[in-house]
């Protein structure tokens, strides 16, 4: 405790102060309100089963009162318990209200007594446990444990099917290649554009777009389709760039293109 408390003026009698100090000095040692109640109940010097909860509630409230006088900050849960005990005290003192269907004062008091008894029982159990012979203090393990060597034996498995598949794999490897678009029969837009940009300079008047298809791309239908599409797309690009004009007489009529006069 701090010096402050020792310097308390003689507002309280020496006797009272000593009694208060006995509690206050220990206040840090209490593990919460239940522990404090258990401690207080010992002053009744009776079997916990016969402890007077009413008297205990009064003791607790007196303790809290004293702590307040000594201007000791009590943690919130101590105050909550004080409020609850004040409520319990009134319940125990007043005759039961028949319209109230909540638990009676006696029931609440019995439960508190049970909690105190249980806490004490657990304290005793803990003490008995710690009083037992303990490993590393009273009895000991083997000092030179022998290492169990763990050998791991690995066996490999393979079936005839695995073998056949593996062999098949090696034999088909040559023909296997990663999937790529087969580009043999594809004329790309870039290729068409490059070709047309070169040719357009020599085309003074309207020319059919079909005549711009590269050699060797007109016979095979696959190649012709790809080349036509690419060339058409390229012509749109060129028109967009303002280098050529495009016209078509009617639906499905041949498309014709012409270099714009001022375009290079």
């Amino acid at each position, binding site marked *: 405790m701090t010096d402050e408390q020792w310097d308390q003026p003689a507002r309280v009698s020496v006797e009272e102060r000593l009694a208060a100090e006995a509690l206050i000095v220990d206040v840090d040692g209490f593990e919460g309100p239940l522990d404090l109640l258990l401690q207080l109940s010992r002053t009744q010097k009776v079997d916990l089963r016969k402890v007077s909860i009413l008297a205990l509630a009064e003791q607790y409230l007196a303790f809290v009162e004293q702590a307040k006088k000594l201007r000791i900050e009590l943690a919130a849960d101590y105050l909550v318990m004080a409020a609850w005990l004040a409520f319990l005290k009134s319940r125990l003192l007043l005759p039961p209200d028949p319209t109230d269907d909540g638990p009676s004062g006696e029931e609440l008091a019995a439960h508190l007594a049970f909690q105190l008894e249980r806490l004490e029982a657990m304290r005793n159990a803990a003490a008995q446990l710690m009083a037992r*012979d303990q490993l590393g203090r009273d009895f000991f393990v083997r000092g030179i444990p022998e290492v169990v060597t763990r050998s791991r034996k690995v066996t490999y498995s393979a079936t005839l099917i695995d073998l056949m598949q593996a062999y098949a794999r090696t034999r088909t490897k040559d023909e296997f290649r990663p999937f790529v678009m087969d580009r043999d029969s594809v004329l790309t837009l870039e290729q068409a554009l490059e070709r047309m940009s070169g040719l357009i300079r020599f085309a003074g008047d309207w020319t059919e777009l079909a005549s711009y298809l590269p050699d060797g791309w007109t016979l095979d239908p696959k190649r012709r389709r790809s080349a036509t599409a690419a060339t058409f797309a390229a012509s749109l690009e060129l028109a967009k760039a303002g280098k050529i004009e495009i016209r078509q007489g009617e639906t499905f009529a041949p498309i014709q293109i012409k270099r714009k006069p001022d375009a290079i």
Partner: protein
Amino acid sequence: MTEPNEATEPEAETESLFEAPPMGDQERMVEAILFATAEPITVRELHTRLPHGCDAPAALEQLQKRYEGRGVAVVKVGEAWAIRTAPDLGFLMQKETVETRKLSRAAIETLAIIAYHQPVTRAEIEEIRGVSVSRGTLDLLIELEWVKFGRRRMTPGRPVTFVATQSFLDHFGLESARDLPGLSDLRAAGLLESRPPPGSFDPNGSEGEDEAAEDQTDMFEE
């Protein structure tokens, strides 16, 4: 090398397809295995290491008898077995004594509550102690390997439970959780029941209570 008089129980062997070693040899083997390790060894693990057809429980029983009153003892730790020095000879072992961290009162009480009430939720521990349990306390007990997580409770929020471990039993020289000091008295006095405060909303509900009761039986069925 073997002691012929030890092979007194031939019944088990005759029925086995594989010839198990005579009981005297089995006992020697169990003895060697238990001596070689500091950790308790389960019967199951003994069987994986012993030759086929051995009867580890029978060998353990004989071995335990053989070491009665000796400087070391064959002890049961939960489902496992170990050899430990006789507790009355601890005074000879100053050199081996392990300085254990002094446990706080909160830690000791929390440990006792977990051991006696297992499986127990954090809320229940707090209800019994009347204060909140700090994270550090449970962490410490888990770190010491005296406490571990148990099954989740089948109640709203499915809170995790805590149970005591085999190391806990080993450390306190307990054969099983049933042998906790004063356990039967506590149970008889109703102090291990979870009793909700009157009139309060009971988070465990009646269902939870059944389960708690069941769990406590679990513990003793092990």
